[in-house]
């Protein structure tokens, strides 16, 4: 078990955002957290790398409570990709991708070869892109760099918060497809947040449906498609009505 939630509650200024969240994620799984805006998906994600601390209950990563982990060590073992990408605008692509290895004080030669390897992996030619700055790239290219940066120190766990949400539909599908290939190749454990049910079916080995701070359904895509839960039905119906 890579991640385990045990009766986790989280409230902000007495407003409960998550209540009694319990689930676990096995090695190599991709859990997609699906839900409407404001249902607590992102909060759940930020609890895993201890950007937030649970109000009650505990989250274990690799069998150790996130509150026992040194937060810095924990986060360096977890790749983190967000919708806004958050590349450092004053650093080249090369240095953006190499930021965690540099924090981990790898020798510069090793960082360089790792960066080249990662840029190839996400489909960007290092000779063309390594020396550029983020503002010189397209949205899709920037998100590729975001994924490469998250993978840099070879973390066993990846957290992805609507990474493809801001991209145009064609680029989005392209990146989803490539990410699926990448995931099969690397075998990382992934927690992926989205409100797009198509994305959930494309990428998830498990789909967790969240509603108002609770996990209301957790199933494989095959079983999820047959779920009778009203919220699941609501999401599934959007999928059918998409193509008249």
């Amino acid at each position, binding site marked *: 078990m890579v991640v385990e939630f045990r009766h986790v509650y989280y409230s902000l200024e007495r407003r409960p955002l998550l209540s009694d969240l319990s689930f676990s994620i096995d090695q190599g799984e991709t859990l997609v957290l699906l839900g409407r805006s404001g249902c607590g998906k992102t909060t759940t994600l930020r609890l895993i*790398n201890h*950007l937030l601390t649970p109000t009650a209950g505990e989250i274990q990563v690799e069998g150790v409570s996130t509150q026992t982990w040194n*937060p*810095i*060590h*924990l*986060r*360096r073992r*977890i790749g*983190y990709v*967000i919708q*806004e*990408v*958050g*590349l*450092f*605008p*004053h650093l080249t692509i090369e240095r953006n991708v190499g*930021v*965690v290895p540099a*924090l981990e004080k790898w020798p510069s030669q090793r960082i360089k070869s790792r960066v080249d390897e990662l840029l190839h992996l996400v489909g960007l030619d290092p000779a063309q892109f390594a020396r550029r*700055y983020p*503002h010189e790239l397209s949205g899709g290219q920037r998100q590729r760099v*975001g994924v490469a*940066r*998250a993978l840099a120190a070879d973390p066993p766990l990846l*957290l992805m918060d609507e990474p493809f949400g801001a991209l145009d539909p064609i680029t989005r599908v392209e990146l989803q497809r490539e990410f699926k290939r990448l995931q099969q190749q690397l075998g990382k454990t992934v927690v992926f947040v989205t409100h797009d049910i198509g994305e959930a079916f494309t990428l998830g080995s498990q789909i967790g449906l969240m509603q108002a701070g609770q996990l209301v359904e957790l199933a494989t895509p095959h079983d999820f498609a047959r779920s009778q839960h009203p919220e699941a039905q609501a999401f599934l119906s959007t999928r059918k009505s998409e193509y008249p």
Partner: protein
Amino acid sequence: MDFLTRYANEILQSTGEHLTLVLVATAIAILIGLPLGILITRKPQLRTPILGFANVMQTIPSLALFGLLLPVPIIGGIGARTAIVALILYSLLPIIRNTYVGIMSVDPAIREAGRGLGMTDRQLLLQVELPLALGVILAGVRVATVISIGLATIAAAVGAGGLGTFIFRGVAVVDNQLILAGAVPAAILALVADFILGWVERRLTVKK
């Protein structure tokens, strides 16, 4: 022309004194203001008192501030020290405020990414926030420097020398040439400082 040949040496010497006052005061103001600006991004409860203090300093009329500092032990007295202290007090606000604003206006997504990747607060500050805020911080230093160059002319009132010496003397004996001998070099200094620091600021501002 006659005037210039007679006073050239004295003008140069006063310009040197003037520049020294401003440079020392600005350097110290940066050493105090930058850490204070960083501090209030970390401890929001300190923001109001610190910015409030710096704000009040700016509202005190400059001649009064120089006068008020004179009798204060250790930092006061006749001479350059009093003048430098007064200039520091005036320079603090733009430096503290711009440091604070510069850091706070770093895109939250970039800060989130940095923290999520496992940067310590110190690494986030030194590797991300300060480099990205540098342009705004330098704009504050530029404002502080230009204000100081103007204000330092009043330093002559407390016997700190500088180009104000000519101005006070010119006012006393009603001699416009003497006043201009102080005012013109001070204006030129301010313009040159503004130009140079503006250039540095543009060089170091990160493109988004």
